[in-house]
């Protein structure tokens, strides 16, 4: 059975308020990916549309978006795993191509969060958890991740400074990513100064600066069979391994919080096995840093650091561009912004550009193997994708 490659990637700028509708937003990423792949719409055999519902009013957005992109009468469908929706789409597209159903599939992720207020966004996100037993207490995403952070601080000596250091790193690269929503520098002093907005409390111990920003955005990843990829693409990036997992929605069903996210451990283990590589083989990674603590947990859950030692990587700056394992050198969700359904595709795009040597000022030196870690909800869903040149 042949391999599957990524032959085109695209992403809209991630912005606070996109001046258009969801179909127009989706078009931005699609056009960039199509131009990147040098394809025409007739070359796309099927499409998968990914987002999290209830941020805009459109029900069943796949058909609407497929039509606007000119992708009819080809088949299309909608997939959803909240924040990991678009990597779920990529894994589904991979499977469809691998099964021999289609040669070329486009995965379009989008989210327009600015149609509702920030508090309404928190309510929607909170309802991505257990609405029967937890939401009645007033839960929201930052609160859940804050509980992981608290458990980490108690068990492993993780400090607020470690968390701040993750944000400082993200901002280092957000400044040089012209598609990021947050382009300003962030310093450790910003967190130490009680007057600073970034130091403001959200859900203890997490502060404003520990949380990613809501954003509007779209992403598009075009996958192809080995035969098609070799025929049309000069620099195909091959999917070497994929892994996915699910977890108890309620916190009461979770194992030890101080061990991070079980979905990430499970998904990574499957992806590494399938790719025949290990954590030490990864040259560049994109991890789901919706909150600073999430990046520290990802270091451990992906095997870049031993359990409890994730903090050492950020202290030693090993996850900076020049370090032993560069992570989120495009600014991550923290600086790039997190338009839920578009995020996974954006992470994949970053790794594809890195492996092609086309990441511009964010380029890591000569990477051969890259990894994407994309989490849905509070570790409810997890996808890991390993790619190579």
């Amino acid at each position, binding site marked *: 059975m042949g391999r599957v490659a990524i032959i085109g990637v695209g992403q809209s700028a991630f912005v606070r308020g996109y001046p258009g509708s969801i179909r127009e937003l989706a078009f931005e990423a699609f056009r960039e990916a199509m131009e990147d792949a040098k394809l025409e719409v007739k070359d796309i055999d099927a499409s998968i549309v990914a987002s999290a519902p209830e941020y805009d009013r459109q029900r069943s957005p796949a058909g609407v978006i497929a039509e606007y992109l000119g992708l009819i009468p080809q088949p299309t469908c909608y997939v959803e795993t909240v924040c990991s929706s678009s990597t779920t789409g990529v894994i589904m597209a991979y499977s469809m191509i691998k099964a021999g159903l289609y040669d070329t599939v486009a995965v379009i992720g989008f989210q327009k969060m600015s149609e509702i*207020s920030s*508090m*309404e966004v*928190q*309510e929607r996100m*909170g*309802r991505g958890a*257990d*609405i*029967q*037993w*937890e*939401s*009645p*207490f*007033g*839960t*929201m995403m*930052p*609160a859940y991740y*804050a*509980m*992981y952070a*608290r*458990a980490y601080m*108690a068990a492993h000596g993780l400090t607020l400074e470690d968390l701040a250091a993750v944000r400082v790193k993200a901002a280092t690269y957000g400044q040089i990513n012209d598609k990021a929503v947050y382009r300003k520098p962030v310093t450790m002093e910003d967190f130490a100064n009680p007057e600073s907005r970034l130091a*403001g*409390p*959200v*859900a*203890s*111990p*997490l502060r404003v600066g520990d949380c990613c920003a809501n954003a509007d955005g779209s992403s598009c990843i075009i996958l192809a069979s080995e035969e098609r990829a070799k025929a049309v693409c000069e620099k195909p990036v091959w999917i070497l391994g994929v892994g996915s997992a699910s977890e108890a929605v*309620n*916190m*009461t*069903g*979770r194992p030890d*919080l101080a061990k991070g996210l079980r979905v990430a451990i499970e998904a990574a283990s499957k992806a590494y096995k399938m790719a025949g590589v290990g954590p030490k083989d990864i040259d560049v990674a994109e991890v789901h840093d919706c909150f600073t603590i999430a990046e520290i947990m990802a270091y451990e859950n992906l095997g870049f650091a031993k359990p409890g030692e994730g903090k050492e990587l950020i202290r030693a700056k090993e996850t900076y561009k020049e370090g032993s394992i560069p992570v989120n050198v495009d600014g991550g969700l923290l600086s790039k912004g997190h338009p839920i359904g578009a995020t996974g595709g954006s992470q994949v795009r970053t790794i594809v550009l890195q492996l092609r040597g086309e990441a511009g000022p964010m380029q890591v030196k000569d990477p051969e193997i890259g990894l994407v870690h994309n989490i849905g909800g509070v570790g409810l869903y997890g996808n890991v994708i390993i790619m190579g040149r």
Partner: protein
Amino acid sequence: MGKEKVEDTRFSRFGVVSFTALTKVNDFVDYLEQGKLMGTRCKVCGKVFFPPRADCYSCLSSDMEWSEVKGKGKLLSFTKLSYAPVGFEGELPYTLGLWDFGDYKVFGWVSKEIPEEELEVGMEMVPRVVKLSDDRLLYEFVKA
């Protein structure tokens, strides 16, 4: 296991805002009214669940009985919210926590009587039922 009623919306009284009106474990709310926090136990395989379930995934039985959350829970983690989702603004600040009871865990509120500085991962706490305004019911934890 719920009472046979045409319109049984008891569960809509659970919490500051309930997002579920009807569940097969609606009796949970009646127990809260009596000051009891209840989970369920599978009569076939003995597995204990909190939050309560009407069905056992372990043996696929729906033959369940109520089982009270008893004793002390060990605080596993907590977070004090300074920002809230729509519908919870009036409750700020409030603190969420997770407690370990050995066979199961419980997620809920930390009593507002306890300042955050006095909370510590590992401390022992006990649940109690709270009656909110508008005939609503919730449970929270206080020091053991």
